[in-house]
């Protein structure tokens, strides 16, 4: 049998579901849990659009099998805005013009969220380094970096 039941903790909710042992976490999130905020732009770990938080770390859900993360806490972009209230990073992305087509935005925001949890006052270079694995073709990264810096500065100011 290739299919087996697993339990995933996603955005604070437990889901028990049947998965194929080959199913990536991205596939299960998108096609079985209908959490389509994580995007597939390459499927081979080269673009960062599928980034999710696993126990607080930003990881690529297209390179992780769903069966591997049963005992972990998974957070997708849908899990950030509690009760519809945007996080400071989400707000800053909107206000600073860091979003254009938006396809990379969920991955970018989750990567930046993990960065600020780990390092509350990253330098511009550290921000750029953290975003290295998240491709954006629209913005040139300028306003994304400004948005993250604004959240950093507000927290520290």
């Amino acid at each position: 049998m290739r299919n087996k039941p697993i339990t995933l903790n996603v955005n604070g909710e437990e889901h028990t579901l049947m998965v194929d042992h080959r199913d990536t976490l991205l596939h299960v999130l998108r096609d079985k849990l209908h959490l389509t905020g994580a995007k597939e732009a390459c499927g081979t770990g080269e673009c960062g659009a599928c980034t999710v938080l696993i126990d607080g770390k930003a990881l690529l859900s297209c390179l992780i099998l769903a069966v591997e993360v049963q005992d972990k806490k998974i957070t997708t972009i849908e899990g950030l805005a509690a009760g519809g209230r945007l996080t400071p990073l989400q707000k800053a992305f909107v206000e600073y013009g860091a979003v254009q087509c938006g396809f990379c935005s969920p991955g970018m925001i989750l990567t930046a969220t993990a960065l600020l949890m780990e390092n509350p006052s990253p330098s511009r270079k550290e921000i750029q380094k953290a975003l290295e694995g998240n491709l954006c073709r629209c913005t040139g990264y300028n306003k994304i970096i400004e948005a993250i810096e604004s959240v950093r500065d507000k927290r520290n100011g």
Partner: protein
Amino acid sequence: MDRVIGERIPRIDGPLKVTGEATYTTDISLPGMLFARILRSPHPHAKIIRVDVARAAKIPGVKAIITGKDAWGVRHGFVETPRYPADQYVLANDRVRYVGEEVAAVAAVDDDTALEALDRIDVEYEELPAVFDLFEAMSEGPEIHPVQLPDLAEPYKNIAGRCANSFGDVESAFKHAHLVRKDRFETQLRTHGYLEPQATVAHYDTTGSLHVWTSGMGVFRKRMHLSTALGIPDSRVHVHKAWVGGAFGGKIDLFSHEFCTSLLSMKTGRPVRFVAEREEIFSYFRHGQPMVVDLETAMDKKGTLLGQKVRCYNNCGAYRGSGAVCVFLCWGFIVLPYRIPALDYIGYSVYTNNPVRAPQRGHGAPQIRYAVESQLDMLAEELGIDPVEIRLRNARQKGEILPNSDPIGNAGLMECIQKAAERTDFCEKYEKNRSRQTDDSVLKQGIGMGVSSYFTGTLIYPNNSAAIVKLNDDGTAHLLTGALDTGQGAETILTQIVGQELGLKVEDIRVVAADTETTPVDIGSWISGLTYVTGNAVKKAAEEARGLLLLSAAKELEANPADLEIRDRRIFVKGTDKSISSAQAIARHIRENQGDPIIGRGSFRGLKDAAIGPSLKNAKGAWSDSYAFDVQVAEVEVDTRTGKITVKRALTAHDCGFPINPLLIEGQIDGQVSMAKGHATSEEVIMKNGMTLNPSFLDYPMPIATEMVENEYLHITTEEYETHKEFVTKEVGEGLVSGVLAAIANAVANATGIHLTKLPLNLERDLDKTDEGTGS
């Protein structure tokens, strides 16, 4: 009332996009949906002897298979005119002409089954000789299409498009020139790099309506193509809105997968989804237009352009795609920014057995501006004048008329050049960098300038836009527009226009967009005319609603409508506290006009005196109502040990008429600078014998966050936004990619003394070669 126009208003779709709520085509899943896959040609050129789907059809779960037989003779093209009839098949008929051409498509209950079915489709091919190099294709290559241009004067083969235009006395210009240079510039095959893969979901329902969601750049053009290719009326094709994860020119006209997904749904009666894999996109989908430019320029000793002879050669791939348009546009982007008294221009688009090519942000401008701006700096060096002076000497000025008779209006080019030079201390840095080219330093600094200009929409289907503004009972409004927001912020700027006219805040306006059944026609997000054409349609619709609202309020307030103003959903007699709510005025209008709620409608079409757009054959005829002008300065650092080029910062001075939303404009500039940086220094789709050798983001290096270029912006405002008057905006979303590309190349030359004539700039490859020109 505060201004809504001209303000840095965050995009209205921002919250949807930062929470994952925004639904893209790839996110759409319908009950009972099937999964489509496409079988592609492994050969660059072959006859199809036989396609046998019997084994595939027997696999449980395979619901439908289509081949060329299901679409015999169905052709489409980016251009479909008597001179350039549609030449591309939705599914190959009896011949394939490039590796990856679509041969069959399968719909199955899941993706694995669809893939298995592809393996079991037996296709027998008879291979034919193929040609990949454009000059070989022009001279000795096999004929890729039997029909050639009937009026072709030259003995060339495989010509897919030819645009020729000349004016002035070119011979005399070259005869009397103080200086003549002839150089060849080559631009590489680059891809768009949109993050959302090409994707389509189609559902043919039991009433005979086809519902389509597709990652595109305009719903009405998609509808036209689908309805023609499928042989069903426009009214039966309903293209729905889905957010678009980037396009940059690569998703405009019909793609085979859109046809196949639709036909598979029609065959099965079930929804069908196709999503392209990234490797498929890199290998088989349409990239931009690579170009070889032979540029010969005659100049007097002060640096005034006397004349130019230009030959452009574009390798357009196995079908015409946008090649014939691109060689027209190269003409346009050469005559726009500088005054050229005499020109002899011919552009050829040439068939080869490569995948088809599409427009890509700038469409011809990066190719030709890189050539012209590079050579201009070479000429300036030879004459001993600086890059700023030579540009000021030749730049078009306010009020000039283009060779096709289009006026350029309040062109701000001179001001852009002057301000960009001042702001960056251009001349000082340029001289300093030059003096250090040959010293012992390892890291060289360079500064370069590039000029570009771009048109603001033209006539190509659907030509026009219309809009509806509905007022709600509480005084808020809905805008119905066919515009599809591809990430540039179309919905936001259109909302700002409604807000400005109706005295409403952006949050009091909701948009219904890009739905062929419920929203009026729209020109599309791909011809650089959306803000101008759709914007003016929206303005008229909002003005009409405003007029009715004020008329009703005037009765209530016993005042003249001209004395009224709207603020925050209240209508005031100007200069007094006397007011009523918009809701009251709307209610009165409904009561007094047989239930008519206030609905404003507007429409707009540019080039009001022209029946069609300019001739692709000879570049004659009106092209656009307004033109944007831009000057960009790039500063680079070159590591002479490794040849590594770092683009440190860029300044953009641009005349976009007036900036409706500076925040969004800066976003457009940032994106174009980054894209140009990639085009200048790292990006190239590498092909051999029709196969793509680097089909992944890892092997096709687009700029990443650590390579961000610092940007500065100078908005040169040359137009105003006035009530009861059409406004003139100018393009800002794609032309800028070309000026900065040229600026980077010139900055590298300023740092090293080496003018590289091939993109991407590769100092390692070209270190031994210096200037390849034949300057006299």
